[in-house]
């Protein structure tokens, strides 16, 4: 059976690229070292493919025809989409796709009762995929990607329970449908607290962010599912903070594991709290317990 060898959650605020140079040194250090750590963990884990769950941000679909999950099946993924270029301030990139894994994922989720959409044409990527791709230098690492764009903001929003169940199906798919010995990396891209387009556009809820980072690093998923409600995320930044549902999908796939973060920082111009968590995929393994 295939194995999840890397699992992380990380924010993708566009400022992490376009406004990074202008940020104070301590802020910049946290951003750069966080993504550098994630990239080297992915390399150390010898990942064969990276599946990224990330908020679609209404970039690909009309608001009256809005899917909850949209899988990118393309041979290669090019970004960012034209209109987002000046806004992100990011280089153009081309990342290898994994069309067969994407098709298997689509079929596997379908068979597990989860409605997803899938598209063979290149998706429109904004900061959701562009920021982690550029900051981890994914194209240079050569790891193929399957992007899954997720509805985190268009009601009715699949809530933490639904996203966790989707993650459980994802984990089951990876372990049972993918080729034996395939090594899979999972990234939940989004958050932390922010309110893009809202009256509190510059609001960052530091207390929420620290609570959330500690909670997901603890591996206590019962508390997570009970307390990470849409209401709580909306209160910590409407329409943005709920991107953390992409982390919840990853957590559903891996089950309870401890994690660590690489520092938390608040910088007003980013309009978003910054902190990432890498989960320890070697924890809770029977063979480790026995050692």
């Amino acid at each position, binding site marked *: 059976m295939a194995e999840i060898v890397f699992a992380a959650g990380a924010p993708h605020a*566009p*400022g992490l*690229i*376009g*406004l990074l140079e*202008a940020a104070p040194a301590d802020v910049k250090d946290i951003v750069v070292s966080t993504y550098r750590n994630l990239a080297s963990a992915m390399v150390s884990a010898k990942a064969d493919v990276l599946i990224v769950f990330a908020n679609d*941000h*209404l*970039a690909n679909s*009309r*608001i*009256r025809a809005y899917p909850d999950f949209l899988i990118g099946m393309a041979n290669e993924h090019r970004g960012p989409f*034209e*209109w987002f270029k*000046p*806004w*992100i*301030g990011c280089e153009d990139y081309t990342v290898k796709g994994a069309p067969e894994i994407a098709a298997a994922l689509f079929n596997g989720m379908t068979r597990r009762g989860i409605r997803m959409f899938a598209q063979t044409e290149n998706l*429109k990527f904004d900061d959701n995929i562009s920021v982690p791709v550029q900051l981890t230098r994914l194209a240079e690492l050569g790891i193929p990607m399957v992007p899954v764009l997720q509805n985190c*903001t*268009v*009601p009715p929003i699949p809530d933490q329970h639904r996203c966790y169940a989707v993650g459980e199906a994802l984990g089951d798919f990876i372990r049972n449908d993918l080729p034996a010995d395939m090594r899979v990396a999972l990234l939940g891209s989004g958050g932390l607290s922010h*309110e*893009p*387009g*809202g*009256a*509190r*556009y*510059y609001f960052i809820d530091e207390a929420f962010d620290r609570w959330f980072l500690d909670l997901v690093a603890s591996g206590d998923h019962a508390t997570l599912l009970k307390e990470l409600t849409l209401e709580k995320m*909306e209160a910590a930044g*409407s*329409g943005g903070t709920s991107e953390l549902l992409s982390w919840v999908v990853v957590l559903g796939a891996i089950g309870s594991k401890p994690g660590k973060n690489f520092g938390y920082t608040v910088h007003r*111009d980013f*309009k978003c709290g910054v902190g990432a968590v890498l989960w320890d995929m070697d924890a809770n393994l029977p063979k480790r317990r026995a050692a």
Partner: protein
Amino acid sequence: MGLEKFDPALAVHDLIQDLKWSVELRAEFAANEAAVLDCYPLRQDERRAIETRNFLALYDMGLHPYLGGQLARLIFGNEAGKGATVAVNKLVESLQGKGSVA
């Protein structure tokens, strides 16, 4: 000012998506905004709010805030740290009570 008022039936959502997706439409919008607005089945109050850059009114009608942020950038500028900062500040000014920021 969150998603409680969200009304996906509003045509302004389609206008914003099309502007985002088409360089040509953006050029036409800049050159002749009224002609572009004519192509969408906007309500009268909806059109007036777009014309007067009244984001507060649009949000009260049910515009999705994420697309509201993008409409501000489509109107006021989209470059990191430059036009986009103007756009964010104008948007916040409107939403925090000023209404029209034309």
